């Protein structure tokens, strides 16, 4: 791995963007700033996917998350929050219990990461993954793939029914 001495620098930069934005989502007092920080996390995660040789998933992440879910979230924020109560949206019912839960689960994760022995393979050359993903979707994973379209259709119809007033009454 001599040709990729740039790899650690890019990794640490992307990891910093991802983690700092995630902390921004969690700690920002303004829900709108949280949504903007969420964009940083999603883009940083997409960069990390590229570093993991997952080109197709990175593109899907940007299309679906940044282009779809984030825009939807921003719309929902603008439709529901009044100017007066955006800043108190983070008034917690108890930060201390949350930190205790965080410490407990964080301890479990640190222990798992340090002590588990995972099956490691030789890292492959980074090749385009679309061929393999497409073949797997249409052979081994054909049933979940078709069910996914049904789930999305149900979600689409459900969202329309939930948000149209005349249909709810």
């Amino acid at each position: 791995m001599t040709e990729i001495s740039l790899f650690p620098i890019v990794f640490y930069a992307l990891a910093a963007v991802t983690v700092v934005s995630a902390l921004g989502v969690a700690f920002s007092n303004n829900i709108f700033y949280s949504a903007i920080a969420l964009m940083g996390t999603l883009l940083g995660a997409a960069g990390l996917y590229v570093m993991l040789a997952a080109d197709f998933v990175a593109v899907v992440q940007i299309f679906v998350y940044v282009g779809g879910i984030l825009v939807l979230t921003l719309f929902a924020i603008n439709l529901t929050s009044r100017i007066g109560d955006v800043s108190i949206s983070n008034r917690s019912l108890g930060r201390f219990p949350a930190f205790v839960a965080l410490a407990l689960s964080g301890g479990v994760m640190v222990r798992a990461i340090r002590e588990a022995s995972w099956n490691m393979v030789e890292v492959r050359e980074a090749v385009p993954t679309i061929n393999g993903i497409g073949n797997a979707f249409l052979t081994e994973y054909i049933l979940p793939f078709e069910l996914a379209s049904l789930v999305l259709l149900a979600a689409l119809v459900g969202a329309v029914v939930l948000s149209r007033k005349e249909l709810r009454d």
Partner: protein
Amino acid sequence: MMEIGLTHFLVVGALVFLAGMFCVLTRRNAIGILMGVELILNSANINYLAFSRYSSMSYDGHLFAIFVIMLAAAEAAIGLAIVLGIYQTFHTIDVEATDTLRL
């Protein structure tokens, strides 16, 4: 400098997960809680792809990540539609104020 490996990506995933968990636990704004759920799903995706790269020879991790993204899209659409419905009924999306099933 230490070579970047599986552990580094797992640490990033764990930190994003903890941030999402804190968000879910402390927010009172329903949209904030949904954003915390998005963070948690992303941390799971980072782990899936890291294991797919470093400890597997197949594309199964990629497929799971795509299914997670698909379900996250469905969850966001339904969740935000429910939040908008709650807002029309209660005129607030504070999850502590919305404690009745019907008016």
